[in-house]
């Protein structure tokens, strides 16, 4: 890892910490998994909702949590279908490609115990309804940052379905996975990266949702104090996964 990256990570960690997030730097997959598992167990979590994350897949986070008895639900539709199919190998962009609407309808029907029509909109509406319940019931939400900004301690998430926003705001605890390469120095540098990411993904269509999240939610609306945890999670954790081996 270059010195510059090291500096970025340190600045990011300091800023995010000041804004109310807890930042943990993991030097290996095991460290990252162990941190998140411990966090979940400390809060007696039972259900976890997860947005799409290449990083989580790489470090085997879902398996780690599932083995410990946690129920982990994928909320990206493609990932969810794959999960229903018992498919462990998730692609990055279009998980469900290769499956016909009929096959997907059958998977969803089986999962919910009700017949779903093999039409895109019918499947979509059902998935939406079912997953909505998962967010509400979940104790922990896990997502991955597409970008992080050192000068402000901000993480940036891109998505089209809207699931990563729900994962990050509804559960009691929110964990953001962050690849150490994804930290950029400034808000402006983030725009440059965002533009190349956004145009590169999803056929040049600008992502429906770009969410900037800095620290932990607060409110100044109840007089006498600026209070932490307004309507979002009680805790924000950022797990930086630094697999370059030479963290210090």
């Amino acid at each position, binding site marked *: 890892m270059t010195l510059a990256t090291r500096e970025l990570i340190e600045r990011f960690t300091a800023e995010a910490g000041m804004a109310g997030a807890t930042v943990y730097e993991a030097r290996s997959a095991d460290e990252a998994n162990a941190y998140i598992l411990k966090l979940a167990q400390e809060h007696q979590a039972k259900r976890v909702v997860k947005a799409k994350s290449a990083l989580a897949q790489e470090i085997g986070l879902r398996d780690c949590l599932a083995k410990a008895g946690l129920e982990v639900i994928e909320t990206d539709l493609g990932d969810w279908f794959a999960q229903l199919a018992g498919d462990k190998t998730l692609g990055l962009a279009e998980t469900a490609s290769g499956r016909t609407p009929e096959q997907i309808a059958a998977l969803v029907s089986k999962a919910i115990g009700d017949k779903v029509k093999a039409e895109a909109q019918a499947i979509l509406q059902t998935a939406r309804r079912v997953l909505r319940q998962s967010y509400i019931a979940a104790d922990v939400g896990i997502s991955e940052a597409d970008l992080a900004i050192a000068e402000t301690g901000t993480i940036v998430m891109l998505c089209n379905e809207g699931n990563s926003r729900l994962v990050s*705001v509804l559960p009691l605890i929110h964990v953001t996975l962050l690849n150490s390469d994804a930290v950029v120095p400034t808000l402006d540098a983030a725009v440059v990266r965002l533009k190349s990411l956004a145009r590169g993904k999803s056929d040049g269509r600008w992502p429906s949702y770009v969410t900037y999240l800095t620290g932990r939610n*607060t409110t100044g609306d109840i007089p006498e104090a600026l209070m932490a*945890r307004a309507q979002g999670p009680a805790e924000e954790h950022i797990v930086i996964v630094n697999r370059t081996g030479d963290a210090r």
Partner: protein
Amino acid sequence: MSRTMRKRLHQALTNQNLQTALQRRRLLARPFRHLAAATAPDFEPLSREIHRVKEEAIASLPRLIEQFKAEAIKSGAHIFEARDARSANDYVLKVAQQHNVKHIVKSKSMLTEEIELREHLEKRGIEVRETDIGEWIVQLAGERPAHIVGPAMHKTTEQIAELFSKATGQKVEPDPQVLLNVSRRALRQSYIEADMGISGANMAIAETGTIAVVTNEGNGCMSTTLPPVYVAVVGYEKIISSWEDAMAILRLLSRSTMALKMPVYISCITGPSWSNAISGVAQLGGQGPTEVHIVLVDNGRMTMWESADFKEALYCLRCGACLNNCPVFASVAGQTYGYIYQGGIGTILTAFLHGADKAEELANLCLGCMACQKVCPARIDIPRMIKRLKAEFVEKRGLSLGRRVTYGRILKHPKRLDRTVKLGAYLQRPFVDKDSMIRNLPYPLNSLTETISLPALPARPLKTRLEGYRLPNSGTRPRVAFYAGCVTEYAYPNLGEDVMRVLREYSAEPYYPAGQACCGAPALYAGDVKTAISLAKTNISALEEGEPDYIVTVCPGCAVLLKKEYPELLANKLGWSERANRLADKVRDFSQLILELAPSAEKKPQMGKKVTYHDPCHLKRGLDIQSEPRQLLAQEGFELVELFDADTCCGFGGQVVLDYPELSGSILKRKLDEIEATGVDTVVTNCVACVLQLRGGLDKRRSKIKVVHSAELLAQQAKPGI
């Protein structure tokens, strides 16, 4: 002066709950005041950048509107352009009815308050739940927001607990954490039930057709994602060109709002949610809304856009920094203003969005202290616009009879003013106490001595005492013309004599140009531009006498007129413009001039005497002079104890002290409390008007604290007999 406004102010100032809430808020903000955006070294470059971004966006607004619309439509959003409140409301209602909407969750939006969207929907039987906690409190109370970003800042915890108890049917304790938990639970349920979400927009980014919603609570995220239909109601002025420009704005937005480096959530929404997980083709309606509607609202904005004088009001980011720093707002909070938008910027917006007549009494609440202008992250010159607004009222309807006589017939003519003051000096006699103070004037002037004691008018004004001073003739020493101004002339002539004495001690040749008149500030700030121009010409002619090297003042209010307003007032007047500029160059504040005359004066030894210093508005913000008076104090051997909020107005500004003495008094009270808290027995300031206000207020309190002008202080220090 408006009677209804006086009554409203009285109600606010005597409302125990409101004053308690405001006091608690002040205490809460106190430790953060030094973090305020405007004092940080990077504030200036960052705010200049925001000003540039908004200036360019507003300049090319028609093009950006088209670009925004095209991109938003491409992303799958529906666009509706609403000329006014009615068409915006009707459109949203139509969309709601088409989807058979029963419950709506709404994120905070000043625009929807402006067009009264919630009321419009509720009337048709649709339940609308505000999801910003403060806004929800205000909704439960059936009130309007008291502050752009802190809608419920006027409520105490006890009042909120009562509202929550009523809403939930359970007893809620007035404990902040309990209140927060109750709101979170109640609101969470609303998101889940809602079939439509509504928000405003902090920014609308043209290059991608994106709506950006900023919240700290997380409610923006939820109300825009959970319901199946999402409607953004956006004022045209929110459109900016690019994501880069959005970043420039974000760098100061939350710092200005509540000393946070960044907002917690910035939700950027581009079209409806979609997924290609099923057929490999994008299907609208992922897990967020299937339908997105963007309502672009004019409602008076384009009229503002066409006005060269007021276009700048469209740069407003609705951050509330101006309100947080407005002394009037700090006394009475936002609902007293009576319309949607509060404070100085609110006055301008009200004029365009609700009607010019409604803004008139709001404009008269302005102290002219310029605090708003200095903290605005978009560098909007609010005081200039308020001045312009007042001038327009006068152009349209003329002055009131009282003012027409005062400004046009008396103030304008020095001799008549002298005679009037002489008459006053005669009439005042029954009311003057032994120590030459007036503490109780009879009706109808009683309000003048309600909050301050006044100095008695002296038998001989300054000019009659300085007749002995001849025009300078040494040819070597700097020639200094003393411009006295009305307060020194008619209330503190001794102070005027002190100025002359000190200047001689500093080896200058001071003199008093005989033809000088009132600077015109009272007329100008009341909108009487004609009288102000006439006085500018009188004074320029008078002050050219003796070809001074410097013109010195002890009243920064006058100095701002001489230095800044005269060149502006006479900018297009042939022959006058140049003379005004020449005069402006020579004008110095007293402290500034002393340091200029003796730049390398030896520092006197510390004598252990502690004093505090009050920054006059027109000196600090009008002339950018704050270090000179402090340097002078150090040079004279005083130890300075800094005053908290030293640069907050003393309450004497504008017409407020005359029109609304009760309001002025409450602003003065905070200043005096701070002065007393320093524990010193002398407060120094550099403005005779502040001296009058502070002395008068301290006298009412029977305080022993002395108020002195720098000139008096230096005169006391000087060897006697010079």
